């Protein structure tokens, strides 16, 4: 009995479901839109023939099949947007609004999705507007629609594309060109290539990547730009317009054009102050650096840098910043030698700095940008610097560090890092007073007396390639976890350590470091950092490691352990 009742209930349920499906399939959204259009059109028209035609019109799927723009496009947009070519519907709400006049772009030859994107075959708003998470081209709205002009039009861009044009200017202004390559536009090598980013990323993803570059790629070195929302929107319009080759170009012309563009050498300029100033502004230096009042809040202050660093240093640095200072996140801007010299000249001729008397004021003027106003190494630009600025609150390290080395680091800088020599601004007494301030306020604890270390073992053998390669095999067993297989300080443990392991390929840093200092660091470790004391190694092994570091940093054969080098080192 029960089984019969169950069968009846089930069959009735089935009937109900089938009826519901059948009912739903006869009624779709576009039916009502089209019907509404016909009703309104019949009411608005004055022409009786039109009225008659409209009244007898039947609901149907309208489609434009568009060939000749790359792939075949099937656009059924007019099924809902039936009024796009009806001048009586200029100010109606969507979906029944007339399209603004675009004289040379008839719908029958261009279709809709060529500009608006979305899914032309869709027959519901959700499908057709590409709202599905997996549809790669969601509908483009104003102002992003402007990016579509670049599918065919080359610069100069047509009228009415203000956001696009502004975005392209901002891309230069924010120095994005320094890191990102866009063929025929920029040649940066640090960041991802953006030639066809418009095909790869949705708008949302672009915004997210600019707002927080590290959200998607944890190891991204792209700085978080402090840009107003309008700027970001315009840059995204520009990025969306980057779709590689335009439809009207053939691959060979495109390739030739790009080759010609790459072969064009940077322009030679006269080395004058005025030229240096315009070059400095045009290259977007201030989108990261600080000069006077303008501040990009991402990179070191340049107001007095021209006085601290030699012109030679600036020119060399500008030629290839990352090669010159390993770990620098400054991109190469491919300037001509004359432009580099002009910028160096401009930096040298900045206004005189009036140094405040109080060490606390000096600290906030000269040091706080990197080391942080609280001495915790969290200055506004600290996370863009490699190696990171020293953390003064690390009392263990600073109580271990000889006072004189700290003073020397202030006066002579730390080569191969962002720490400049302050010799030109501070006298030795001022430097000592400044560090005394740092010790009092940030390091805090009184300095314990340091146990004198046992005299170091002299090297049992001199530098040789064989010794360096023995050092390499020890390095690969003992050291790569932090310093990395390549010795660049990016081992698997490195992200968890602060301060970060030293980049052993930093030529400038090690060229000023005596062998004894290296040996001492290996033997005793460095207090307050992740570097342990390697007392398990033999003397010979430690010296092999020293020689290996020499070969890595291209500072061997053994640098002269001169007094000067020891002084100017500094951790």
């Amino acid at each position, binding site marked *: 009995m029960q089984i019969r009742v169950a069968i009846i209930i089930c069959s009735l349920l089935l009937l109900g479901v089938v009826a519901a499906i059948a009912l739903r399939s006869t009624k779709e959204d576009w039916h009502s839109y089209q019907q509404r259009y016909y009703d309104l059109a019949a009411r608005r028209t004055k022409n009786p023939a039109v009225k008659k035609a*409209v009244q007898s019109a039947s609901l149907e799927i309208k489609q434009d099949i568009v060939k000749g723009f790359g792939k075949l496009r*099937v656009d059924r947009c007019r099924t809902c947007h039936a009024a796009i070519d009806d001048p009586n519907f200029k100010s109606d709400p969507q979906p029944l609004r007339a399209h603004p006049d675009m004289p040379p772009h008839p719908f029958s030859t261009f279709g809709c999705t060529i500009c608006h994107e979305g899914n032309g075959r869709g027959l519901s708003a959700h499908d057709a507007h590409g709202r599905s998470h997996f549809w790669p081209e969601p509908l483009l709205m104003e102002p992003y629609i402007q990016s579509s002009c670049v599918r065919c039009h080359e610069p100069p861009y047509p009228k009415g594309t203000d956001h696009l044009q502004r975005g392209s200017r901002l891309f230069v202004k924010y120095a994005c060109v320094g890191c990102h390559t866009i063929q025929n536009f920029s040649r940066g090598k640090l960041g991802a290539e953006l030639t066809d980013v418009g095909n790869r990323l949705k708008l949302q993803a672009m915004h997210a990547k600019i707002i927080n570059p590290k959200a998607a790629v944890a190891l991204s070195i792209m700085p978080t730009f402090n840009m107003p929302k309008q700027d970001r929107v315009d840059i995204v319009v520009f990025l969306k317009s980057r779709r590689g080759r335009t439809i009207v170009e053939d691959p060979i012309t495109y390739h030739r054009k790009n080759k010609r563009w790459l072969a064009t050498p940077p322009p030679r300029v006269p080395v004058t102050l005025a030229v240096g100033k315009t070059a400095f502004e045009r290259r977007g230096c201030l989108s990261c650096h600080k000069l006077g009042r303008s501040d990009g809040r991402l990179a070191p202050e340049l107001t007095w840098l021209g006085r601290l660093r030699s012109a030679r240093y600036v020119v060399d640095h500008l030629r290839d910043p990352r090669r010159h200072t390993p770990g620098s996140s400054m991109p190469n801007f491919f300037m001509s030698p004359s432009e580099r010299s002009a910028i160096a000249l401009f930096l040298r001729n900045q206004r005189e700095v009036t140094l405040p008397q109080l060490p606390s004021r000096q600290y906030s003027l000269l040091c706080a940008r990197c080391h942080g106003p609280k001495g915790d190494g969290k200055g506004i630009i600290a996370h863009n610097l490699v190696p990171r600025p020293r953390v003064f609150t690390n009392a263990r390290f600073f109580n271990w560090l000889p006072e004189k080395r700290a003073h020397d680091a202030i006066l002579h800088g730390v080569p191969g890092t962002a720490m400049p020599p302050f010799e030109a601004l501070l006298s030795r007494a001022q430097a000592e007073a400044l560090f005394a301030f740092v010790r009092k306020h940030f390091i805090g604890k009184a300095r314990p007396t340091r146990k004198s270390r046992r005299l170091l073992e002299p090297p049992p053998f001199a530098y040789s390639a064989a010794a360096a390669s023995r050092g390499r095999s020890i390095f690969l067993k003992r050291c790569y976890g932090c310093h990395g297989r390549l010795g660049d300080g990016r081992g698997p443990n490195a992200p968890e350590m602060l301060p970060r392991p030293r980049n052993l390929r930093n030529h400038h840093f090690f060229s000023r470091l005596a062998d004894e200092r290296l040996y001492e660091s290996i033997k005793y470790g460095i207090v307050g950092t992740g570097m342990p004391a390697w007392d398990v190694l033999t003397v010979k092994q430690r010296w092999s490691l020293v020689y290996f570091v020499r070969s890595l940093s291209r500072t061997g054969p053994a640098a002269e352990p001169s007094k000067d080098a020891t002084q100017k080192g500094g951790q």
Partner: protein
Amino acid sequence: MSDTKLSKDRPPKEGNSRRRVLGMIATGALALSGSALGLLTAVFFKPRVTYGPPQKFRVGKPATFTSGSEIAYQKQAVLVRREGNQFAVISTKCTHLGCTVNATDIGFECPCHGSTYDRRGSNVSGPAPSPLAWFLISLAPNGDLVVDKDKKVPAGTYLEIKA
């Protein structure tokens, strides 16, 4: 235990008729939903649109045609004729083997095997077996003329548009 057994052993006649009614309802519902599903599947398989060249297309505003003109559309193989305020669309596809016929003073002429038609499109001479087709012409809501090649109309049907 014995109680439940008793209750199941109802008089056979009453049980039978009830069972029959219930069975009929179930069978009916199943048959209905089955046939409805079959129908839906058939509807699903019939394409609502095709990817061929559109059979329905616009040829512009009536004002762009001058009275007495006959304008041929090569790709769509039709000819739009205006006489006074009357419009008509005539196929230019020869009914013999499908060549495109040319309009002449007295009607149409096929270049392939010499069939001739009069101005109404009736076959006059040559191998053509039947007259040329006339298609429906109407107005779109924005005032454009629309030709629908899917709908044939009797020869001599004109669309009257008051200027």
